[in-house]
């Protein structure tokens, strides 16, 4: 691990700086020992429990639903069906109508007449204990009239396909286009391709993934008169409050949402869940508190999934390897319904396909497609991993076609350090960075030259274990997001963030953030920032979050936004506190404001040694308010909202060395090195943690994870026996490093790090495996690269997918056409 120098020890005379120091996370003791309130720990007096009967059929009309036997079961209070809520349940909101004519079929929280995916709620038992509720669910009798099941996107978009929703005209929800030529950010794409010397075309598959957060979703609703409190294991208490109020009709001011400590989300808890709405509706109807906690099986089956795209990508270049154009067509699986940002995920990715390269022309098209599967939505990286995979994979393919070194090809086309800020063909303004510098550092960390030599030796001797090196030179857009940009993309909300700082009489500090953590370490990082800004001890800062009654405004945590947007709001609030305190200090010190210096938590009078006041003394003085300037309010507390002017664009070079056992197809990462530029670092340990977790998830997409449905639409990977997530045992040591180019668009100079590892790593891993076996005739291997797929690709040709297609919707070679390389004769 190489870290930037710890600034707290850099200059011995300056006051010690918290920002940049490797503080251990202050929240970890309670999170790790469980000595905290997780939603499922909560017990309210008289609380009832709900259990959900879920459809075992992917597509059917409900012809008969008899709940009478369940009602008679012991301790059952009520049993509800969709009929009971059809007039008040509204639709799970979709906040991102990506096109004006997007078809949203509506998403009932509980099925009324028909079911559209396995796991959809069909009936609910409310009982005095959880076990009584679960037992009674078994007594419900349902008859289903099966309808044709739509699972395969490429089939679903064909004329005459069976429909997921019979009231829609087709299975296509929307057709989203970004054309750089039309947008004025690039030249005409077709012309670029017509004129190109070389065109490489590929079809890549982004398999469906399950976020698999550790803490299952859990909801508790408390009722006090006509006030409701919704505790939920959610990433988005603020957004949930607005959306739940709009959906249920509970007035927003009568609804308080609390996300207590939340055990992971990865985007999977960036949602307004049907069960949250149902718990509110039932609590309102019964006037009683209610709890629902999902089982792991329910979680895998019904919490939204991620990815699931078929990508058709064409790149045009000249023979010297200068890229000339990029064309992307996506089929993006929406699942059966549109949830909060289901349609927006691929649209967000639209802007990242050009990656770090200077494409003069670019066109992106995406069809959002309905299938009888659980909806997709945000999953770590949301749109950007998919885009990064496609561009980093096809750059390798182009290099092969041109017989060029893949790094040389990238170098030839990437944005040079002196070109920042750089406006891309997708219209984004990349903020800062140096791709060459990160690449040099990563090559050194990996030991690139030795590994290339070993690769040659193994190839020469025909070693059964072959070695490959994979590259991913990535960037991503994060720090969501400038509100005006979101508006221009038809997103239903802004991207600002809110913070407030309360100076307590004893000199302690409360920081309220609207960016709700669910494992990221906000409490530590925010404390470090405030400690520096106000000159107070790290331990004197308490960070409050996650309760809409405490943190009134906020837009929560996703899109690697917390530090760069929420942390900036904290800085702005602290600046206001200091400005307000300065007035009080000037008054008490009988000095002019201009003569005061603020440093290390003390206002001192220039040229008058010894005269000064600590900010804590001012907090006490203003609490007493016996003596403060005329014309100001008796408070130095402050609040700030920050709306970013740009995204932040972390970048990095990720290198993976992979051993492929050609006898068995087993792949093993030999070494993984990456150097990321995430701007200034507030806490290197938190950064390291985010990188490791992100790498694990990105590598896992390449090697392990895939949500597979059988031909009837049942999730066959419905437990962790079949849906493989790796443990530390399966992952290599990570050699990580950083270069530092401060982000120009926020005062911290920080870029987001939450998703970088996950976005960058997947193509590096796949490229590495292909590099190991390309000389054996392998051109592609489907993800996840199971040993069987790798083995078949080596020994039987194709991408190894054929077998997986049998009897399931797993992406298989049967439907993978051998994508040809066209060469325009010139």
């Amino acid at each position: 691990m190489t870290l930037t120098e710890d600034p707290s020890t850099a200059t011995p005379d300056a006051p010690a700086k918290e920002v940049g120091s490797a503080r251990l996370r202050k929240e970890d003791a309670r999170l790790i020992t469980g000595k905290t309130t997780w939603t499922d720990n909560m017990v309210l007096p008289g609380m009832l429990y709900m259990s959900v009967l879920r459809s075992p059929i992917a597509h059917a009309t409900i012809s008969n639903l008899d709940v009478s036997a369940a009602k008679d079961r012991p301790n059952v209070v009520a049993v509800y069906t969709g009929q009971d809520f059809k007039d008040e349940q509204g639709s799970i909101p979709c906040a991102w109508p990506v096109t004006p004519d997007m078809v949203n079929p509506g998403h009932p929280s509980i099925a009324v007449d028909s079911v559209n995916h396995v796991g959809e709620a069909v009936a609910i038992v409310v009982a005095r204990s959880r076990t009584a509720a679960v037992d009674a669910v078994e007594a419900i009798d349902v008859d289903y009239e099966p309808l044709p099941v739509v699972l395969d996107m490429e089939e679903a978009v064909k004329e005459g396909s069976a429909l997921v929703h019979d009231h829609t005209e087709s299975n296509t929800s929307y057709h989203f286009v970004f054309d750089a030529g039309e947008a004025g950010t690039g030249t005409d794409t077709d012309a670029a391709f017509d004129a190109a010397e070389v065109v490489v075309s590929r079809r890549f598959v982004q398999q469906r993934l399950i976020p698999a957060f550790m803490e299952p979703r859990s909801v508790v609703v408390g009722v006090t008169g006509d006030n409701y409190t919704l505790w939920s294991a959610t990433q988005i208490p603020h957004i949930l409050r607005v959306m739940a109020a709009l959906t249920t009709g509970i007035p927003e001011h009568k609804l308080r949402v609390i996300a207590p400590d939340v055990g992971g989300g990865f985007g999977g808890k960036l949602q307004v869940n049907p069960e949250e709405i149902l718990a509110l509706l039932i609590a309102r109807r019964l006037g009683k508190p209610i709890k629902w906690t999902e089982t792991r099986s329910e979680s895998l089956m019904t919490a939204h999934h991620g990815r699931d795209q078929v990508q058709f990508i064409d790149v045009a270049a000249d023979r010297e390897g200068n890229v000339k154009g990029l064309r992307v067509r996506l089929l993006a699986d929406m699942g059966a319904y549109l949830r909060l940002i289901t349609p927006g995920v691929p649209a967000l990715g639209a802007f990242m396909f050009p990656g770090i390269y200077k494409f003069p022309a670019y066109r992106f098209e995406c069809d959002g497609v309905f299938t009888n599967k659980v909806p997709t939505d945000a999953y770590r990286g949301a749109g950007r991993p998919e885009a990064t995979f496609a561009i980093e994979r096809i750059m390798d393919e182009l290099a092969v076609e041109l017989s060029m070194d893949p790094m040389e090809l990238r170098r030839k086309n990437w944005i040079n350090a002196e070109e920042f800020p750089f406006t891309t063909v997708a219209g984004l303004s990349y903020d800062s960075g140096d791709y060459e510098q990160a690449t040099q550092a990563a090559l050194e960390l990996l030991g690139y030259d030795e590994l290339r030599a070993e690769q040659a030796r193994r190839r020469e001797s025909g070693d059964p274990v072959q070695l490959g090196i994979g590259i991913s030179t990535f960037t991503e857009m994060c720090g969501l997001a400038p509100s005006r940009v979101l508006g221009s993309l038809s997103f239903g909300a802004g991207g600002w963030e809110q913070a407030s700082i309360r100076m307590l009489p004893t000199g302690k500090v409360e920081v309220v953030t609207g960016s709700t953590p669910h494992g990221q370490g906000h409490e530590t990082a925010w404390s470090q920032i405030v400690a520096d800004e106000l000159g107070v001890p790290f331990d004197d800062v308490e960070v409050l979050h996650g309760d809409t009654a405490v943190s009134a405004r906020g837009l929560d945590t996703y899109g690697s936004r917390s530090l760069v947007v929420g942390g900036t709001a904290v800085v702005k609030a602290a600046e206001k506190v200091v400005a307000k305190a300065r007035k009080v200090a000037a008054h008490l010190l009988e000095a002019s404001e201009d003569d005061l210096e603020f440093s290390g938590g003390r206002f001192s009078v220039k040229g008058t040694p010894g005269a000064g006041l600590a900010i804590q003394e001012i907090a006490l003085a203003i609490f007493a308010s016996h003596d403060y300037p005329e014309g100001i309010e008796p408070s130095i507390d402050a609040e700030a909202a920050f709306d970013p002017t740009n995204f932040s664009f972390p970048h990095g070079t990720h290198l993976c060395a992979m051993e492929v056992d050609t006898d068995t197809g087993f792949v093993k990462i030999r070494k993984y090195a990456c150097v990321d530029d995430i701007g200034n670092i507030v806490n290197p340990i938190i950064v390291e943690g985010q990188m490791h977790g992100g790498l694990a998830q990105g590598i896992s997409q390449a090697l392990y994870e895939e949500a597979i449905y059988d031909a009837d639409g049942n999730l066959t990977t419905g437990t962790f026996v079949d849906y493989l997530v790796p443990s530390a045992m399966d992952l290599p040591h990570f050699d990580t490093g950083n270069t530092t180019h401060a982000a120009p668009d926020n005062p911290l100079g920080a870029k987001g790090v939450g998703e970088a590892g996950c976005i960058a790593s997947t193509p590096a891993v796949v490229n590495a495996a292909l590099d190991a076996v390309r000389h054996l005739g392998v051109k592609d291997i489907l993800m996840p690269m199971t040993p069987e797929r790798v083995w078949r690709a080596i020994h039987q040709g194709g991408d190894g997918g054929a077998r997986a297609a049998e009897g399931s919707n797993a992406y298989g070679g049967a439907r993978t056409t051998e994508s040809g390389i066209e060469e325009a004769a010139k």
Partner: protein
Amino acid sequence: MIPASFAYARPTTVDEALQAIAAGGEDVKILAGGQSLIPVMRLRLAAPETVVDITRVTELRGVREDGDSLVIGAMTTHHDVITDPLIAQYGKLIAEATETVADPAVRHRGTFGGALVHADPAGDLPAVALALDAEFVIAGLGGARRTVPATEFFVDYLTTALADGELLVEVRVPKLGSDWGVRYEKFNRVAQAWSIVAVAAAVRREGSRITEARIGLTNMGSTPIRARAVEAALVGADVSLETVTAAAAQAAEGTEPSSDLNAQADYRQHLARVLTRRAVTAAAGL
């Protein structure tokens, strides 16, 4: 999920256990480490009327010697097997295979007997027991004991020769001395997963010749199976890579492995050949 409700008994002796089983009604389940039974009950794939918890039957725990045999109590946990000195000396193949089972948490609860009675074709211990010609000591109501050889114990997918009301007491395996070399070669995708295919090999050498070979295959059919053709080809052969490779090429003979998300049958057969070569190569000290 939550299991359906059931009656619960927690005997402390084998006799009490047998009585509790007899008195438990139509559908009785014996609870050993619970690592297979509890998940099945939570998913409500099993909903027994009575659960007889034998974790307090101390006489079923532990490893002892009896002449040329090792006797392993049914309730000996995987962890205790791995750390047992007798196993370390005479039962290395068992230890090697047990070390690949799941993770430390599961190994501290799961038991040797439970893993064998559960008879999952992907489980690691049945093939080892079969390769070693283990004998299963079974107690029935009234305390009557019978002994079943491994070749008859594993009847079908998740099915053994145990009759209703019977309890597995202990398992006897021959001690393997220092003239034996062993290897358990397991193939799976992540460290904590079940075997896609695995091979248990024990080979006895005299000088440069193989005099005995025992090969058990995991997950190559609905029960564990012996790779008899490989064994026959190895016995009497000179220890060399060529002979081992040639013998291992017969590893999939007569197997009918299943096809699932991890592997199609033909790939499993291929793996059986590769893993057998690797296991025997290592066991023979090549």
